[in-house]
């Protein structure tokens, strides 16, 4: 496996995908714990679809993909959080509506400009060929920001995730922290989308948190486990993709699925023994 890794990393484009993917996987897992526990998983899904739509528009207009998708996805995060908090409109239905609309816009725009070809497939399911030097720089900055904010505000994030009412009543500005998490998630998704694909990126947010929760019972351990698991699964998925010539994004998701099944079984076994 060591030799295989060395061989794989002798390709510069794989190195770039490896760096960006690892950092995105790490950040997505950290933010994912809070999103999953707050029942906001759908936001990740909605954001990735909006990201796809804006990516398509950017390509059609000949603009740099991230310069268009980052601001739009940030705006979408703001809106989606508002929608899911407002119980008067059906939050999940509204998000599904926005998701599929953005996806449809993206597909139509792409079909009208570049034609329906493998490009569309790349956007939907990801490609590791897409990463440029600037993406590597951006993802390093992003990961540094997410890590720093997560560590500095860790206790507040726990309080807001566990009991928003109590956090608010005792003077924590819960809305600010929730918005921060949603906006950072939007950035992570915008950066990671092109490797993982618009259809698959939200699994990086959801899977590691769910797997870690099968086994661990403290918030701190769930966070650490999700982060490590996410990075390991990304690496294994990339390795499998290289070895068996399978699509990278889908391979990473399958690695996460395998981890989830293993962790579920371990959690069950632990409960039976205890």
């Amino acid at each position: 496996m060591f030799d295989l890794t060395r061989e794989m990393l002798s390709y510069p484009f794989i190195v770039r995908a490896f760096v960006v993917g690892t950092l995105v996987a790490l950040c997505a897992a950290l933010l994912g714990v809070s999103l999953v526990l707050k029942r906001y998983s759908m936001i990740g899904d909605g954001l990735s679809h909006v990201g796809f739509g804006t990516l398509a528009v950017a390509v059609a207009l000949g603009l740099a993909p991230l310069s268009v998708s980052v601001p739009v996805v940030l705006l979408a995060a703001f809106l989606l959080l508002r929608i899911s908090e407002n119980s008067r409109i059906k939050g999940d239905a509204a998000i599904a509506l926005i998701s599929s609309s953005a996806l449809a816009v993206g597909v139509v725009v792409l079909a009208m400009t570049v034609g329906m070809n493998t490009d569309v497939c790349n956007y939907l399911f990801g490609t590791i060929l897409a990463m440029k030097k600037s993406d590597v720089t951006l993802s390093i900055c992003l990961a540094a920001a997410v890590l720093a904010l997560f560590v500095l505000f860790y206790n507040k994030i726990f309080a807001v995730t566990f009991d928003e009412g109590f956090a608010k009543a005792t003077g924590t500005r819960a809305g600010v922290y929730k918005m921060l998490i949603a906006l950072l998630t939007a950035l992570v998704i915008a950066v990671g989308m092109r490797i993982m694909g618009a259809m698959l990126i939200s699994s990086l947010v959801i899977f590691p948190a769910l797997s870690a929760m099968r086994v661990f019972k403290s918030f701190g351990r769930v966070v650490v486990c999700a982060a490590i698991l996410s990075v390991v699964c990304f690496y294994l998925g990339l390795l499998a993709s290289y070895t068996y010539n399978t699509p990278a994004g889908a391979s990473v998701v399958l690695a996460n699925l395998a981890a989830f099944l293993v962790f579920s079984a371990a959690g069950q076994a632990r409960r039976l023994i205890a």
Partner: protein
Amino acid sequence: MAADTKEILRLENLSLRYEAAAGWAVKGVTLTVDEGDFLAVVGENGSGKTSLLKMIAGLTPPTEGRVVFENLRACEVGYLPQQTAVQKDFPATVTEVVMSGLLNRKGFPAFYTKKDRETARAHLERFGAWDLRGESYRTLSGGQQQRVLLARALCASEKLLLLDEPVTGLDPNAAAELYDILADLHTRGMTILMVSHDVDGAVRRASKVLHMDTAPVYYGDAEGYLKRGGFHV
């Protein structure tokens, strides 16, 4: 404690309407809570008890009127909310939950110190919950969960405690135990404001009673309330 009673909380014509077209959920509540009071807020379901408490806790902005804290910062309240669905499947240890009560007195960055750990320990020991510190919150019994949340509330404030239906879902023994804890806190000078549909249990321990039916129906001392044999509208 000073001989003269010190005002701690004042509600001025507090009213709430969730939507402009809807009727009032809470109408015209004016009262003062003094230091050391134990105020029980009772009434039927939908009488505006919890809405009233949420306005006092700062979770719902009032449509009219205002909440004024005296000798107390607004965030210096210990709040014991109704359990939310999220918490039923939440991976968190008792220690993690209780420590989060200390955040209101932390600046930035909010990291816990050794002293914070000792404070949390003292409150857990007080309720005989120190042995549970490593346990997962979601695996505790209802009574244990309430004691943990009470310890968290006390970490947030030693002065004013707001309780929203604290005995709901508890078996009679656990409920009695919780009432004993509250009575004990009250005798030590804690100001308590408790919303409950368990009228008998709540009024017996309280010093003052507010009976809500959107607007206040009865507000006065608990003895007077008991003498009237409750209040039925």
